[in-house]
């Protein structure tokens, strides 16, 4: 059982043609469930992308993140109110670079403050030391639960420090690079209840995150927590959805 908390649906602007790739790739790696955001929503037009994604999610294998552009908060709040009650959207996605909204920016802080009362986790792009700023936002905003997308990428040591500072910050590892020892160092330094699995598929093949985790020499318990247990506990889903995932929350 694997739950991929950081995946995408839709085309990319690079030299690649992966718009239709999803379930077959998931099957290859034993990924039962992917929580995806629309590339259009992340890169260009959040409402249009969220709307398109709503027509694709099956509530069985594919669940969604509602993408919020911090510069368009009214749109984001409207989309959250519309899509979260469907049960097919279970999280929020916020990208820093594509929206010109660093984690320290006022609009990002307003976005995270707006999102927190909705109760679902916010997957936020982090790179380098910015993961520390996300941890600070979690400390400052009551109830906010955030996932540090890429767990800082080349800043995984900052991610360790960040996760240790706030138990409402979660880390997911996807990155196109796989420096030796990165995953093992994070697992050794962080409460494994704060670790999730993400691939960045369909931008990155799951081989990258899957292989990096596989190479880390983790215990069975740590693997299970990363693969799905923590995700199943983190995301607010009803019993029918859990049944579709063939799991139940940990006591």
């Amino acid at each position, binding site marked *: 059982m694997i739950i991929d908390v950081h995946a995408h649906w839709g085309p990319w602007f690079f030299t690649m*043609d992966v718009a239709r790739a999803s379930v077959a*790739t998931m099957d290859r790696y034993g990924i039962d469930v992917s929580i995806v955001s629309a590339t259009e929503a992340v890169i260009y037009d959040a409402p249009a992308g969220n709307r398109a994604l709503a027509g694709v999610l099956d509530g069985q294998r594919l669940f969604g993140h509602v993408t919020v552009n911090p510069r368009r908060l009214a749109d984001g709040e409207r989309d959250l109110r519309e899509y979260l009650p469907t049960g097919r959207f279970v999280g929020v996605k916020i990208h820093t670079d594509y929206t010109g909204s660093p984690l320290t920016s006022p609009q990002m802080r307003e976005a995270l403050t707006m999102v927190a009362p909705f109760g679902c986790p916010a997957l936020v792009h982090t790179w380098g030391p910015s993961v520390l700023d996300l941890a600070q936002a979690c400390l400052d905003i009551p109830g906010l639960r955030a996932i540090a997308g890429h767990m800082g990428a080349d800043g995984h040591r900052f991610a360790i420090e960040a996760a240790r500072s706030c138990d409402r910050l979660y880390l997911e590892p996807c990155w196109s690079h*796989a420096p030796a020892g990165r995953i093992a160092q994070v697992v050794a330094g962080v409460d494994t209840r704060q670790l999730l699995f993400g691939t960045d598929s369909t931008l990155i*093949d799951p*081989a990258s995150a*899957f*292989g990096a985790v596989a190479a880390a020499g983790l215990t*069975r318990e740590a693997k299970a927590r990363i693969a799905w247990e923590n995700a199943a506990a983190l995301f607010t889903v009803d019993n029918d959805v859990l049944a579709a995932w063939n*799991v*139940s929350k940990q006591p």
Partner: protein
Amino acid sequence: MMRGMTDPFDAWRLVGDLQVTLDVDVLIGAFPDRDGPAGDPAAVAATLGAHRIATGAAANLRAALFDMRSGNDEMLATGAPFVPVAVADLRDPIGAARELERVAERGARAVRLFPDEQGVEAGFPSVRHVAKKAVALGLTVLTGGDVRRFWRPFAGLGATVVFLDTHFYHLGDFIVAALDEPGFHTSTRLLNSPDALETVAAHVGADRLLYGSRAPHYEPLVPLLRLATGGLDAEQVAAVAGGTARRLLG
């Protein structure tokens, strides 16, 4: 309640029986500016063996970062499972050309360049100078650096080059450069989008792809997994997994 007790991250099930006969990107030694493995030959050989990599085209970080001559001598004296790759220091183009003549006489078939680690940009005269010297000596060039910039100093020379840092973000740039340059190849290390290997194969041929791990500083399992689970046929996979590297490096 947990569903199933099998390993959710069983990569070897996916790798199957794939074996790499020659990995084009292996390093001996350590980076003093970062944490990471010491990179002594025995440990690196063990890493290769653990990943079913029979041999590695290895360059020495002492040569790359401190002293070409002694580092290259260390590398040339290291036996199996390594195919020694010489290093030319781009910070010293005069000495680098002299060193290339020396190592070529000692049997080196390839030279590796470390522009990023040495703070050298693609437009520096040094790079073009070393490129010409490598071509004149019949050496295959293994080079780091952003392929969008480092294609240029090797263009128009008839050079045989393996770009070791090609990222799938820049795949289109590699392909259009390779269409004009039959000697341009790329490592698979960072071609980990869902269709990068297949895209290269379709546009310029799978014989432009070489498996590269950067062991022991990167996880060899990731490019191994990508190659094993991709859409290349068995003949293409064999070429990527070392067939082409053996042809280029001897």
